[in-house]
């Protein structure tokens, strides 16, 4: 009965072509990522073993394992999260609940934006100048963690701010109306309902900290240490730095080792991300409104 005119048919064909072209482009953009992970797996899985994960490197890092690097990364991440998380959450609370719409708030927003955009090597310079030298911490886990904390702060602030803003304003008004103070409203209504978003941001930042290299280069991480760190004032090794070193500075490393190290690092970060994504979905279903 109704036959589309030639013009319309042509249009549809053009649209289909466009869609196919774009979907191909998109697919091929993501393909490298998959290829890379598979390639790493192929090349590195032969070296992955319990020994590899739990042994110290021996013979100038040409054999043995990456245990101290894993431990070092663990400490760096934990301390930097312990510092950046409370500070970031409270800063976001200020921005969401107390800040007025004036120039000071605009400057704060700008500062957060810049903190996020500063190159990581510049963060390293700051960490060197401020923590290692000025505050006399020396190259230490503490200095490196604090540098990482400063790097992660904008991420935590932004994700917390988003979750705080997602709590409907009507809840705050209802709470104020019955005589709860601003702080009580934040403590009993706003914050508890933002925890999911905050957690997600924190877990994501764990992934970032684990992979960071430049910022920790001069602030607390060393190529090779004979002992595990005993205190926060000691240096440590780190997975990211370890990968950098054995792929650029050390000769005689068995082929599979760097691949395996990269694999461990990626798997660590990806599992953190997966936890964050899962948390996000879980809390989305449990929403109280």
């Amino acid at each position, binding site marked *: 009965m109704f036959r589309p005119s030639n013009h319309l048919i042509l249009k549809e064909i053009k649209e289909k072509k466009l869609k196919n072209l774009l979907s191909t482009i998109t697919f091929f953009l993501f393909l490298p990522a998959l290829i890379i992970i598979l390639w790493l797996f192929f090349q590195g899985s032969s070296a992955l073993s319990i020994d590899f994960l739990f042994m110290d490197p021996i013979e100038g890092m040409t054999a043995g394992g990456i245990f101290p690097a894993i431990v070092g990364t663990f400490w760096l991440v934990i301390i930097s999260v312990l510092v950046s998380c409370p500070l970031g959450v409270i800063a976001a609370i200020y921005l969401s609940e107390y800040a007025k719409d004036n120039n000071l708030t605009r400057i704060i927003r700008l500062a957060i934006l810049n903190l996020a955009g500063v190159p990581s*090597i510049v963060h390293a310079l700051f960490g060197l100048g401020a923590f290692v030298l000025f505050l006399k911490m020396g190259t230490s886990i503490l200095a490196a963690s604090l540098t990482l904390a400063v790097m992660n702060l904008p991420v935590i602030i932004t994700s917390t701010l988003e979750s705080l803003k997602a709590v409907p304003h009507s809840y705050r008004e209802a709470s104020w109306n019955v005589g709860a103070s601003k702080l009580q409203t934040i403590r009993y209504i706003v914050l508890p309902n933002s925890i999911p978003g905050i957690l997600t941001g924190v877990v994501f930042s764990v992934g970032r900290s684990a992979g960071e290299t430049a910022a920790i280069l001069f602030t607390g991480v060393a190529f090779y240490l004979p002992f595990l760190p005993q205190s926060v004032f000691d240096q440590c090794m780190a997975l990211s730095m370890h990968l950098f070193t054995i792929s650029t500075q050390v000769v005689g490393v068995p082929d599979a080792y760097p691949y395996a190290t990269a694999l461990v690092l990626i798997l660590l*970060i990806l599992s953190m991300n997966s936890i964050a*994504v899962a948390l996000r979905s879980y809390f989305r279903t449990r929403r109280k409104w």
Partner: protein
Amino acid sequence: MEIKLSESPQLAMEWRKKKGNKPTGERIIEAFIKIAGLSSILLIAAILFFILKESYPFLVGSFDFKEFFFSKEWYPASVVKIRYGVLALLCGTIMVTALSMLIAVPLGLACAFYISEFCGPRLRETYKILIEFLAAIPSVVWGFIAIMMINPTIIKLFNVPIGLNILNASIILALMSLPLIISVGEDALRAVPETYREAAEALGATKWEIATKVLLPAAKNGLMAASLLGVGRALGETMAVLMATGHSIQIPHSIFEPGRTLTATIAAELGESPKGGEHYQALFAIGLVLFCLSFIVNLTADILIRGKRQ
């Protein structure tokens, strides 16, 4: 209907203080909150301060504006004649950033367009998760890939002697910036009201026409911001370019030649330079340049995003 009125008004009085001011506990906590709110300003100021502090002797001493920015001779540790010219480094940074953006921006925006306009919701979710995973790969791993995978590929494909060069670094940077460009670009496109699309479709426009004539102008600011953020990312990247560009401080004459960026120079030389020495200070000066560059890029991107929202 029987209504029980409150039986114990006396009991009620105890916690029903009639007036008062904020309890001291609350005052203290709120003061902490305000301090935390200011923390980001304090930190960015501190970063600027310390970089200036460490580079200051150099800046007021041997620093010569013309030589620093326009000479390609970077010999900070020379026994013969110490020269601090960052032109070669600047060229390295600019070439790598430009080439990587040339690859990443059109492809990234096309991809953003696809995900925003053509994708079904489930596919979109999948791609978004993939984007997050891609974005999570640390730069040192990308640098590793540059050395182990892209390097030999370039050598074989283009028949050139070295695979650690501008091209390598650009490819890697493009791959690293893609997630950012795609997600911000997709946000920008999603922010265009559905009514625009519906109106255009009602007039008989094709998806391509809707894209170019309706969406592109409407989301122009957000898309530019996405690209700028990609530029910022590429500018500031350290480890991946350090591992990918090779080790020669010269102005590259082709994309197959190695080069050096500002960021990589700091990373490579800071460890060796004696603390407090002039070389060390000059590296901090480079850090200052990077700080200013990223400030400008991010500020512009933010203005674009904010302007668009209004």
